[in-house]
């Protein structure tokens, strides 16, 4: 019988049914970082348990690391220092591979996994982090878990989980110039809602995804959780294999060939059943930005901020009012022209080489507007190295961006990179929740890296197609 990738992977990893009806699911690959793992190791010790399959857990440090003089320890924040040391100790004690700062392979957990070839098709991946679905870009079933589940995976390499339904999301056609993967996912979230994916795994497909690079697929899968889906994936294809070939944790020689055969077979069968199907036309998507405090508060940059007066549903009206009050944005006004204070390019959504390369293309020979603080934070040390080899870092710094060291940085501001007061940030990250970027009144507008670059140059939210004179700009949206 034909099956979706989700079903094939689920069945291959289902150990047995538990008494509460959930499945004991084998987690092939476990990724950990410094913020959510130490408590789990504590629980493990409390119970007198050990790590069952230490070679299947991989660690990195990303959330709390400073992005300036990272190699100088102790860090200014003693708690950050304590967290990195706890991770070092736990990894050493249990024999877990740790991509620590000194290895040159450190970075955001969702950038490091694929980079190292740890993320592979047909596997299950869990991490104590809600953006784990990023790894789904390779045809893995990957999802975020809580602290107790980290403990469960450490102790047993399994966890208890209820099976999800599968929604296929087709994006067909051709994206207009100046429209990026980030716009695609912001559009999907706007269309299906921030809670629309609860209980579902999202399978992304269609010609747009076929054409996408691996990094673009990662951008979309990354934000599945913003649409309510714990897990999102793209079926593996030649691009997937090409990306993985030769990476440190991938098989080699004859084993590589067998692996590719296996990976091909795991893709969804053409006539398999989906619990739901959504079709989206690529031509309908334009550069997108958020205007509110939930990732589904999205509009095209050419549109106006919603006016609660035009909303008949009282609940929606209230939520628009609350969002606008927090965002201090005028109802009904065009979003373009909104002044920005900070511009941030980075995060596990858009902190990879192609993101910086694309933005650099347009930043070359331009200057960040006066009064705008702009920072570029590579997603990993390897991203940093490649950007430096290509001279991308210099394009950024010549334009007036600060080029930083690898980490999560201002995506959630657990390190020193924070908004101040009610600063407004044009951000390539994934969450625009109240206070997300480190100031309780700080404001976030999500967009693609190229749109952040445009905002940086003009000092306000701008249509990058106009600012950078992208070909055919007039013909789209």
């Amino acid at each position, binding site marked *: 019988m034909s099956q979706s990738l989700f079903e094939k992977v689920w069945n291959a990893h289902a150990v047995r049914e538990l*008494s509460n009806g959930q499945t004991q699911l084998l987690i092939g690959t476990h990724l950990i970082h410094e913020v959510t793992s130490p408590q789990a190791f504590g629980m493990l010790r409390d119970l007198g348990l050990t790590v069952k399959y230490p070679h299947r857990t991989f660690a990195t440090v990303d959330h709390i690391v400073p992005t300036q003089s990272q190699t100088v320890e102790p860090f200014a924040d003693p708690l950050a220092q304590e967290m990195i040391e706890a991770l070092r100790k736990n990894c050493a004690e249990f024999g877990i591979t740790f991509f620590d700062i000194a290895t040159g392979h450190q970075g955001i957990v969702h950038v490091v996994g694929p980079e190292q070839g740890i993320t592979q098709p047909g596997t299950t991946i869990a991490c104590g982090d809600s953006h784990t679905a990023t790894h789904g870009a390779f045809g893995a079933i990957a999802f975020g878990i809580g602290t107790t589940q980290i403990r469960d995976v450490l102790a047993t390499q399994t966890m208890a989980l209820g099976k999800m339904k599968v929604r296929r999301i087709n994006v067909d056609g051709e994206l207009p110039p100046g429209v990026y993967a980030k716009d695609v996912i912001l559009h999907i979230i706007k269309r299906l809602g921030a809670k629309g994916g609860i209980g579902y795994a999202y399978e992304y497909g269609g010609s747009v995804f076929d054409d996408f690079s691996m990094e673009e697929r990662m951008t979309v899968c990354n934000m599945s959780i913003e649409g309510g889906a714990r897990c999102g994936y793209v079926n593996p294809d030649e691009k997937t294999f090409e990306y993985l070939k030769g990476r440190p944790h991938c098989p080699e020689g004859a084993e590589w060939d067998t692996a590719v055969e296996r990976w091909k077979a795991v893709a969804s069968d053409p006539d398999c059943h989906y619990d739901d199907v959504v079709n989206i036309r690529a031509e309908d998507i334009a550069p997108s930005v958020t205007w509110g405090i939930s990732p589904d508060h999205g509009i095209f940059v050419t549109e106006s901020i919603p006016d609660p007066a035009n909303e008949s549903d009282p609940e929606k009206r209230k939520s628009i009012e609350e969002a606008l009050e927090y965002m201090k944005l005028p109802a009904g006004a065009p979003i373009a022209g909104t002044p920005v204070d900070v511009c941030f390019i980075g995060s596990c959504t858009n902190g990879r080489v192609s993101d910086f390369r694309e933005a650099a293309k347009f930043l070359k020979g331009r200057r960040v507007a006066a009064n705008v603080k702009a920072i570029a934070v590579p997603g990993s040390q390897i991203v940093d190295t490649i950007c430096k080899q290509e001279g991308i870092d210099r394009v950024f710094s010549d334009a007036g961006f600060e080029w930083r060291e690898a980490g999560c940085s201002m995506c959630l501001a657990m390190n020193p990179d924070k908004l101040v007061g009610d600063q407004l940030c044009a951000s390539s990250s994934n969450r625009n929740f109240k206070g997300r970027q480190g100031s309780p009144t700080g404001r976030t507008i999500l967009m693609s890296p190229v749109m952040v670059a445009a905002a940086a140059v003009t000092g306000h939210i701008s249509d990058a197609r106009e600012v950078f004179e992208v070909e055919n700009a007039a013909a789209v949206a």
Partner: protein
Amino acid sequence: MALEKIVTVTGKAVSVPGSDIDTDRIIPARFMKCVTFDGLGEYLFYDVRHHEDGTPKTHPLNDPKHAGASILLSGVNFGCGSSREHAPQALHKAGFRAVIAQSFAEIFFGNCATLGMPCAAATAEDIEKLAAAVEANPVLEVTIDVEKNRVFFGDDNFTVNIPDSAREAFLAGQWDPIGELLEGEANVANTAGALSYMGA
């Protein structure tokens, strides 16, 4: 690994009334930057228990007569907001072993269950009656009978609701999945053995 069967929870109760008490109120976000849950108990309800300068406010949990309470009483939708496990952990580390409220947020309920901390739903009247009895006599012994879905105190008692799946898990000593997951060790080895990427 056999877990304790939770048939009854007995102890002193304390009332922290209010609706929609969210996880942020239970444990403010800034205390999440920690490497262990151990110290979380002292930050339970920190911002409602303390002035900005850190001096204690008048709050039932600061009142010495309620010291050592292990059953928390509250209102509607207790534990809503973010799904952080720090909130139930803070309650547990502060010595609480059960919560009686009008209703609970789902994820919070599940996280409490995993700690062996039953969340029992009751009517507003019954909770008020119990809160009044506790106020009058803070050392009153309160027992939640998980098996019978009832709360007993003094000469009085009332019905509570703990959903069947959770109740059975408490009674069977399977409230934390770790026990059952560990028992499946041989099955896990089989499943892992069939997957080449799991190799040593």
